[in-house]
């Protein structure tokens, strides 16, 4: 069985190489049969990788401890869902999982484009398969998931207890889908550069893929934050850990691309810039993978001492050299019809939105690698931790929030004073009033005041857009308000779906600002019967309970909760002790409402004295962060849902490009 997995990986590696070479030769020699063969080889690579993954899954499920991987990341007592998740719980398995997703996407891309994009596809095949070959080479030559132990282990070391949380089942796959999804637009970008077909086609063909990748990057980042919030027990959700940054940076550059590509579609501008963003996003995903696996920067997520760092650096450098060469070669074709009439225009505001998104990505990148720079320059190791990122990114983030309100509403070309007043006078008023009211109410955290004012401003602009659009439809079509609203969104899904995403973004800002500015925190060491008062909560330590099973033992404190004197329930903060890894974990107890989260952590318990240390957080409005994430996801679904108009636009673009190319060839 295990040999089958090994064989499948080796054949997949060879098949991938074959696909790359045949695709390039077929395109170069204009022999479609070769391109077809390459496509079939790509399908075969997918099937082989699936076989390898199935073999590893089988080994995990049957607890085959003769495999080093299984013995390192599973145990006989590990439950079924975590055995499935153990596939991405360790180094080699997660690389295999990565290739599995990549090759699955490659198959979908090939099926979608069987009768389309004949000129681009060979290079798309070659690019996707080159990436697959890189990962397969690591699996075949460097870190095999099918490495056998000299003597089979009697018991596995178990999955890291921090990973034994239900988010493990969904956060890594989601993030990987986002990461790997960025490879598809990248592959089309490369194909467009090589063939010189740099018109609308590749952009329109990959739009949905980019959104798909963005959707999962958003979801992955959100789920990761939620996981940290529930599992790490420090009351927060984002610590600017290098690996969090690694997932955040491609999200930022992908967001920038999704915005600026609209300018290219509408005005044929910024072709070069959009190309750079697609290439950059892909490079950032590889950089992120490198960060997690190199041990260059320390992080809770790192697969330590893996020795894979140099391979990723080499691959990344190779990619950068090749894409830079291609971009420079094709520079003449990447000139758009760049034209800006005024800084008070949508075009200009999107440029500044891109500046801020990429600026935040750069600041994050800079902070992440600065320890390495410092060591190289001064020979002194320093730490760049959360205080740095918060201080640097907060002002940039607030500026971005402001642009979220301006960008979608300001007129194209040039906004007249009258139009500006019409679009922004009321929202600005709402923003100022909000700021004044909360300042008068005694808020003295200026970031929070500014953030809430801007949030009100942005929400007002969006509400006005919905209101005006609905009114216009009511007047023109005679539709009743609910139907007018539904049609407004249904017929302009990109625009109004985008607004829904922006509402989600505003909620995220509100959740982050409130929970970081007004968090209450208390640590108390108490005895049974003691009462702790935190904010409006009265917490009574009633009892402590112990449970034990072969996998872990656990203690739960029973805490009666009253708010403003009225009992609202009982919470059970828990501490677990995982037996195989001899490691404790915190399982926080949450009472979550739209106003605030009561977040209880059982710090420690001393049996001799009966003293229990409890950490209490009250995180105001933090739920809006998660709800905002869901709203962003919902908005993306609206944006992604296909419309006939969009299919027509792609068909038209295909026709134009084909005509143009035929004319050029004649």
């Amino acid at each position: 069985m295990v040999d089958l997995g090994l064989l499948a990986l080796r054949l997949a590696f060879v098949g991938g190489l074959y696909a790359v070479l045949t695709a390039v030769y077929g395109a170069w020699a204009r022999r479609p049969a070769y391109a077809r063969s390459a496509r079939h080889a790509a399908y075969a690579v997918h099937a082989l990788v699936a076989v390898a993954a199935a073999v590893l899954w089988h080994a995990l499920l049957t607890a085959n401890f003769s495999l080093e991987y299984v013995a390192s990341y599973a145990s006989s007592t590990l439950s079924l869902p975590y055995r499935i998740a153990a596939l991405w719980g360790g180094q080699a398995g997660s690389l295999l999982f990565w290739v599995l997703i990549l090759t699955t996407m490659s198959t979908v891309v090939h099926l979608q484009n069987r009768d389309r994009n004949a000129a681009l596809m060979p290079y798309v095949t070659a690019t996707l398969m080159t990436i697959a070959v890189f990962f397969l080479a690591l699996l075949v030559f460097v870190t095999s998931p099918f490495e056998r132990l000299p003597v089979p282990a009697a018991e596995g070391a178990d999955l890291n207890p921090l990973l034994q949380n239900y988010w493990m089942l969904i956060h890594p796959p989601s993030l990987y889908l986002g990461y790997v999804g960025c490879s598809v637009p990248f592959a089309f970008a490369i194909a467009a550069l090589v063939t010189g077909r740099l018109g609308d086609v590749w952009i329109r063909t990959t739009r949905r893929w980019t959104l798909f990748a963005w959707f999962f990057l958003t979801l992955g980042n959100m789920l990761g934050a939620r996981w940290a919030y529930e599992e790490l027990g420090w009351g927060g959700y984002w610590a600017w850990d290098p690996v969090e940054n690694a997932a955040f940076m491609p999200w930022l550059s992908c967001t920038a691309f999704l915005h600026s590509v609209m300018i290219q579609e509408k005005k044929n501008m910024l072709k070069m810039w959009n190309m750079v963003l697609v290439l950059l996003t892909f490079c950032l995903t590889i950089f992120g993978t490198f960060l997690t696996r190199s041990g260059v920067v320390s992080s809770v997520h790192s697969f330590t001492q893996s020795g894979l760092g140099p391979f990723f650096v080499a691959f990344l450098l190779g990619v950068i050299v090749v894409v830079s060469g291609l971009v420079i070669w094709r520079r003449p074709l990447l000139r758009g019809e760049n034209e800006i009439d005024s800084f008070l225009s949508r075009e200009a505001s999107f440029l500044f939105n891109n500046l801020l998104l990429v600026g935040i990505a750069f600041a994050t990148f800079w902070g992440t690698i600065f320890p390495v720079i410092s060591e190289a320059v001064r020979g002194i190791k320093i730490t760049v931790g959360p205080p740095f990122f918060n201080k640097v990114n907060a002002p940039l983030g607030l500026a971005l929030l402001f642009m979220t309100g301006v960008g979608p509403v300001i007129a194209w070309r040039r906004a007249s004073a009258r139009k500006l007043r019409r679009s922004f006078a009321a929202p600005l008023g709402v923003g100022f009033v909000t700021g004044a009211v909360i300042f008068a109410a005694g808020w003295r955290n200026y970031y929070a005041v500014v953030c809430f004012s801007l949030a009100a401003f942005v929400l007002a602009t969006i509400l006005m857009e919905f209101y005006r659009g609905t009114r216009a439809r009511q007047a023109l079509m005679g539709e009743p308000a609910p139907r007018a609203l539904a049609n407004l969104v249904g017929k302009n899904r990109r625009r109004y779906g985008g607004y829904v995403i922006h509402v989600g973004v505003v909620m995220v800002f509100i959740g982050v600002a409130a929970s970081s500015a007004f968090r209450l925190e208390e640590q108390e060491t108490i005895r049974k019967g003691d009462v702790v008062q935190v904010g409006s909560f009265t917490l009574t330590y009633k009892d402590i309970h112990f449970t034990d099973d072969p996998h872990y033992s656990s203690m739960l404190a029973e805490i009666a909760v009253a708010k403003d004197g009225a009992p609202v329930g009982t919470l059970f903060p828990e501490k677990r002790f995982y037996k195989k890894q001899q490691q404790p974990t915190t399982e926080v107890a949450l009472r979550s409402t739209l106003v605030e989260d009561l977040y209880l952590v059982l710090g420690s318990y001393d049996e001799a004295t009966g003293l229990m240390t409890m950490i209490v957080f009250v995180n105001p409005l933090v739920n809006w962060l998660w709800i905002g994430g869901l709203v962003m996801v919902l908005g993306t679904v609206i944006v992604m849902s296909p419309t006939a108009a969009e299919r027509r636009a792609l068909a038209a673009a295909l026709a134009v490009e084909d005509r143009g190319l035929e004319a050029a060839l004649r």
Partner: protein
Amino acid sequence: MKNATQTEIEEALTCQCGCGLTVHSCNHVQCPSGIPLKREIAAQLGEGRTRAEVLAYFSTKYGEKILSAPTTTGFNLVAWVTPFAAVLVAGAVIVVVSRRWRRPPTVPPPSRPAPIDEARRARLEAELGRFDA
């Protein structure tokens, strides 16, 4: 109840247990690094030292890497300044470039058309004729 200075200092120091969090955020049970550090901070403050003095003490004792953010002196200033400088410079570039985009494209001065030889003229005539037909 901890005082605000204690919390501030805990936030300014990194826990050395490998969690990557600040001393304040680290909540590992019996953390071999976070707990003694918290005690040490309290002791330092107890001796009447200021925040800056306490941070300097930790930086000297454990090395600069214990600080959770770069200092704002010397080379470390580069860490703080670069992101903003980059955004400002890129913003200036956008302004300059888009000003250039705003100008109407400069039309090259009309030049005398190159003389056409007879063979080409005949071909042109023929093709135009075909086009009209």
